[in-house]
């Protein structure tokens, strides 16, 4: 293995380790189990979104609607519990259903209506940003809020639902690991195994790299593509559930920042282990990389605009790793 190969394969992992060492030395409290946990927690929501968008990248598509799917799911959860006064189970089911339906519609538009993926999901993004505001006439949802007709909403976020955002499992220390981190890890392992080791997942890669060949080989290309958008929709709605559980109310938000952060994580993932293609492990590492960087910088009192700058710089470096250094990028 030449130095160049080594750099391509392990360069990003080495950077990650270097970063951890740097922050450990330069800030107090970075190298503690608690810090590790809240770094994971801070990337849980964008990480899950990024894993979903990875599925669409694998089939050669893209999903711009994930951020707004997440915030729509958050509003739906709040609506179901606070205004319709239903329990946590109903709220979760409704959110997941939203993810499935949005994924199916996205897939249908792209596969059967032949709308380019970026445009179809862009349209869906705007649609959802508007839709989530219609039931409450643009208000955020909280217990005790006054409805447009003058009545008061009496429902509350159920304890079971809030636990999704606030309960902590004992691990080494008591009350250490929040549910969202467990969900992130479980979903990451699942999607990684699914994409790398199952026939379904490998076929999705085949569809992504050469749809024509895959089709001629007898693969139901259209179905695989639609499935990819459904996966991305469901992952987005799961992160919306976690978001609602953490905030404890339904917040009007476009989710654009969630979208950008998660796409960045997925793209950074291309560079990990020299994969030069979308992959779940890389996405998870990419999300973690951004999380470590941002939390470390915050601990060092760096202002917010430097964080955007650093995020952008990391993305550019990762893309250079992917496309310039790796021969696989030259297609």
């Amino acid at each position: 293995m030449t130095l160049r190969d080594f750099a391509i394969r392990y360069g990003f992992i080495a950077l990650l380790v270097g970063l951890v060492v740097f922050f450990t030395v330069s800030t107090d409290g970075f190298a503690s189990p608690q810090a590790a946990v809240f770094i994971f927690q801070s990337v849980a929501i964008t990480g899950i979104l990024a894993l979903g968008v990875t599925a669409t990248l694998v089939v050669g598509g893209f999903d711009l609607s994930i951020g707004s799917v997440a915030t729509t799911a958050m509003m739906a959860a709040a609506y179901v519990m606070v205004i319709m006064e239903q329990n946590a189970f109903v709220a979760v089911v409704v959110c997941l259903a939203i993810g499935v339906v949005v994924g199916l519609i996205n897939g249908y538009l792209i596969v059967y209506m032949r709308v380019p993926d970026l445009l179809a999901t862009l349209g869906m993004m705007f649609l959802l940003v508007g839709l989530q505001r219609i039931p409450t006439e643009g208000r955020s949802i909280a217990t005790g809020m006054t409805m447009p007709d003058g009545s008061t909403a009496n429902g509350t976020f159920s304890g079971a639902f809030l636990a999704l955002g606030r309960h902590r499992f004992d691990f080494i220390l008591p009350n250490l690991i929040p549910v969202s981190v467990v969900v992130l890890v479980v979903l990451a392992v699942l999607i990684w195994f699914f994409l790398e080791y199952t026939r379904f997942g490998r076929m999705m890669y085949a569809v992504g790299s050469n749809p024509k060949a895959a089709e001629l080989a007898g693969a139901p290309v259209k179905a695989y593509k639609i499935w990819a958008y459904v996966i991305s929709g469901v992952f987005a709605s799961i992160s919306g559930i976690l978001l609602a559980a953490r905030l404890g109310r339904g917040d009007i938000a476009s989710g654009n920042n969630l979208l950008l952060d998660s796409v960045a994580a997925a793209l950074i993932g291309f560079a990990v282990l020299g994969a030069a293609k979308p992959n779940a492990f890389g996405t998870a590492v990419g999300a973690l990389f951004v999380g470590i960087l941002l939390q470390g910088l915050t601990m060092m009192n760096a202002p917010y605009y430097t964080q955007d700058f650093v995020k952008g710089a990391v993305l550019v470096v990762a893309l250079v790793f992917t496309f310039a250094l790796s021969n696989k990028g030259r297609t």
Partner: protein
Amino acid sequence: MNFTRRTLGKLAVGLAAASCLISAPAMAQDKPAPFDKPGDVKIALVRYLSTGDFFQAYLSGVEAQAKALGVDLRVFDSRQDAALQADMVDQAIALGVDGIIIQHGLTESMKEAAQRAVDAGIKVVAFDVNVENPKIPQIEQSDRDLARLALEQAVKDNGEAWKAGYVYVAGIAPLDRRDETWKEFKAKYPGIEEVAMFGTLDNPIANSVANQARSVLTANPGIQVMFAPYDEFAKGVKIAVDEAGLSSDIKIYSADVSTSDIAAMREPGSAWVATAATNPAVVGQVSVRALAQLLAGEEVGQSVIIPPTLITQKDLNDNDIKNMEELSAKLPQFAHAEVAISPWIALPGK
């Protein structure tokens, strides 16, 4: 005491003045023109921002005060379209309204439209937008006072020396004004030590701020006070404080209030102890009253400032306040501002 002619004279003048004062309310029953026939008075509200809890409450205040006066209110909503907002002012002029309230907007697009309205003999007031016109009074909520009230409470609760975390994003006008007050406070109380400053407007804001605040709390153990002069910031800090298990060690002071903020402040053991806020409905009422005074030919002044109210966790718990309506009902100073008051102007709900 020697009674001289001069003192008698003074007494006589005083008595005369006093009798004038007594007779004044009686005279005030006769409303000045054009409010002797309020049904013929048409006013327009031209809005730039309208979505969100704050703007909804503002509108309800405008409507309530217009109803109390008995005037005819037209609402124009440009939904954040600056050019459309200017057109709407022209539309209101064509409609022959007597007065216009401009609510938010951009100086560049509204300056000329506002001037055209003034030229057409229409009285205009502006809320939270500077149209650079000496004939147009500015209605403002005082961001400096908001920050001052919250910080004074922090000093009252924690003494004059504490370690503080501060949430701030530069370049947002109200936050910049609140920041000026924070700087003054730090200069006035050298014991206040700002150990960390952070903040972001990435949405959902509360979630992003919570992530940052977790790091800050870990890197700076010993923070006693978090000053988060915007309720979304405070919400995020509260989530982080709860997650770090520091709710009993840290106190959060903020500005602005909403129904969900009230719920967060009232959670058992909540670290969010006080917020300073102006009631948007009151701002709406004051906007209409100031316009009415202008129409009646009274002096209003260049700026009309609505004083904020301090709302503490204790107030909320003692009065069992659960939402904005109950806050207005149970904290009278929040429900009403003694600003732009004339005896002939009926107040809403009275």
